[in-house]
């Protein structure tokens, strides 16, 4: 019974949160919450790759981009296509998943740090292609991006039109998807597949020897993680109404990684917390500028430098002081705190590279 009460309390909180926020702080903050929910989805997706399977991916934003462009191209005047969102979102997630496998297939036998660099390169390659595929045929709109993207429509109702303000309607839609991704993450973590991911993260050679086809299982991690990113990208495009390559830079990838690392790799609640923290904190830092102005009469430290400075510092400090994140999962904490032998296993993990 207590469990149901708790559940009801959560539900009430999540349902009332946007209205409370809207009343207290204005719609801006509801919009920030909307984006925060998108980041929750992205962070959960990256968490599958980094947290569950232990593969460092620095180009994750590419999948976000694939989803966003899928939506933009299939529901805008660009090609004159106006497919409904319930068709496009799965297409976007699927396409992102395919890209995830494309990235994974040639790179999975690389060691952790090589993988990081290659994924980073992959993210840049995707962005550069999006930026340049306007010639000789205009596919992506090039640097100009795609505008006038259809808002998400439920039956005859566009989420951009009344009743209610767009930021509220999208909040509930995003909430639904974020909860779904969290649910899927949780189910996956405690499944046969999730155990296989954990085994690979712990000791890839032992996992392979126990009959886990590490290549397929890693590919699956990439594909699943990527499809979360694609889904989130589709929602982003519908919400913003405009996409351009500027939104999908390396900085975004690093920000999403920071969310996962800061919150606690592999720990779903921690990752959600990390995503909320890092998407809300920079906005809060906006108020530091005026505060400094009033305190010192001038801007001493630029708020946006402060934002990036904090990102960098937090990555270092968290790894040094709380390697399992601010809110670690019990198991992962033990592992990251356990120095010696895990590292030794990873370092001696070289065998026939031809696999």
């Amino acid at each position, binding site marked *: 019974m207590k469990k149901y009460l708790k559940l009801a309390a959560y539900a009430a909180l999540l349902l009332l949160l946007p209205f409370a926020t809207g009343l207290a*702080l204005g719609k801006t903050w509801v919009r920030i919450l909307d984006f925060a929910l998108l980041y929750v989805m992205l962070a959960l997706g990256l968490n599958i790759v980094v947290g569950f399977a232990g593969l460092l991916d620095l180009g994750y934003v590419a999948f976000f981009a694939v989803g966003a462009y899928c939506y933009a191209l299939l529901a805008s005047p660009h090609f004159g296509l106006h497919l409904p969102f319930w068709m496009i979102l799965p297409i976007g997630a699927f396409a992102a998943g395919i890209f995830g496998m494309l990235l994974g297939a040639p790179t999975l036998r690389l060691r952790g740090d090589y993988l990081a660099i290659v994924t980073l390169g992959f993210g840049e390659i995707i962005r550069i292609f999006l930026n340049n595929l306007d010639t000789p045929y205009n596919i992506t709109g090039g640097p*100009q991006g795609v*505008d006038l993207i259809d808002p998400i429509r439920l039956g005859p109702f566009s989420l951009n039109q009344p009743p209610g303000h767009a*930021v509220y309607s999208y909040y509930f839609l995003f909430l639904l998807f974020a909860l779904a991704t969290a649910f899927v993450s949780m189910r996956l973590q405690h499944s046969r597949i999730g155990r296989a991911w954990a085994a690979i993260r712990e000791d890839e050679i032992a996992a392979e020897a126990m009959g886990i086809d590490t290549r397929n299982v890693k590919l699956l991690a990439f594909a699943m993680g990527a499809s979360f990113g694609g889904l989130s990208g589709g929602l982003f495009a519908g919400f913003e109404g405009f*996409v351009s390559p500027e939104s999908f830079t390396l900085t975004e990838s690093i920000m999403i990684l920071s969310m996962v690392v800061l919150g606690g790799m592999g720990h779903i609640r921690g990752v959600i917390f990390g995503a*909320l923290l890092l998407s*809300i904190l920079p906005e809060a830092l906006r108020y530091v500028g005026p505060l400094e102005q009033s305190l010192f009469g001038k801007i001493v430290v630029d*708020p946006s430098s402060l934002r990036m400075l904090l990102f960098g510092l937090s990555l270092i400090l968290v790894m040094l002081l709380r390697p399992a994140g601010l809110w670690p999962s019990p198991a992962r904490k033990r592992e990251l705190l356990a120095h010696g032998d895990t590292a030794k296993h990873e370092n001696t993990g070289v065998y026939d590279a031809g696999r």
Partner: protein
Amino acid sequence: MTMLRPLLAAMAAILLCSCAKQKPGSEFVVRIGSVAPLTGPQSHLGKDNDNGVRLAADEINASGLVIGGKKMSVEVLSEDDQADPRTATIVAQKLVDEGVNGIVGHFNSGTSIPASRIYSDAGIPQISPSATATTYTGQGFETTFRVVTNDRQQGEALAKFATDTLHARTVAIIDDRTAYGQGIADEFEKDAKAGGAALVAHEFTSDHATDFTAILTSIKGKNPDLVFYGGMDAQAGPMMKQMRNLGMKMAFLGADGSKSPEFIKLAGTAAEGAYASAPGLPLEKMPGGKAFVEKFTAKYGKIQLYSPYSFDATMALVNAMKQAGSVDPARYLPVLSRIRMDGVTGPISFDRKGDILHGAVTLYQVRNGSWTALP
């Protein structure tokens, strides 16, 4: 309860951040939002824009404007969109929430476009002093205006200058693959070809590149009469320098993004003779231009690029309010779309889309280390 705690903490954080806004005095205050990248690599240009708005506000406040029988003063709300489309929509929403009556901004096309949907939904007029992409005003929003010529208009003028004045028969184009650089380069290409020039090369770089030798060498092999660059000063300067180092003596033509003091600093002596365009008329020829330059430099230092336009945009908003006798966006918006006034950058009035009507474009050349308007 484990899940609840951080959520509550997050909410508490939000609440803490909400600083109470105070309206100064009993005066009747109009809020104008000014949005540009105030941080990041374009912040010197963004700050310049913001200063233009502030100068206009100061002037209006000093003049003691009366609207509807009440004394009005302007409060400028500056926001930083970091040149990022997502952040742009957040600050747009923030300004709408804070009840601004008009917007001057955003700086980039990539931020002006997503933000324009939010301003349009809220019915608040938005004048961009520097976004030049044609799509910005092409979305069909009634609230969207700009006081600079768009890529179409500027590209046409640049091409005309290249083919008619400089008599370039062969041209090479470089663009930086940003919305701005690619937009202007494509328009230039179209019109230059129409003007009879042959395009011998179209090369590309990026907005954080420093090495242009490979593409310049490739262009050198085609020996065009003129090299056109669509992009910002930070690349145009070093590019010009490397061009001269490679022994390429042909003319260099840039658009408004290159026409800054920064360009001359970065290119050094190689800057001499470079051409670039800027929307509007040369400041020194405008009635209020000289005064503007003096006041601006006294207060904020050298004009970078678009502060005269953001100044004019602010003036256009306030003039429309004055003529409509109301600061209510719904009331003064129709007046704004029909407005006729003289700004420091030239006469200002808008066409049906919100683009500046008969927007003039002036060409400049670096002579003796500074930009000089060509007749």
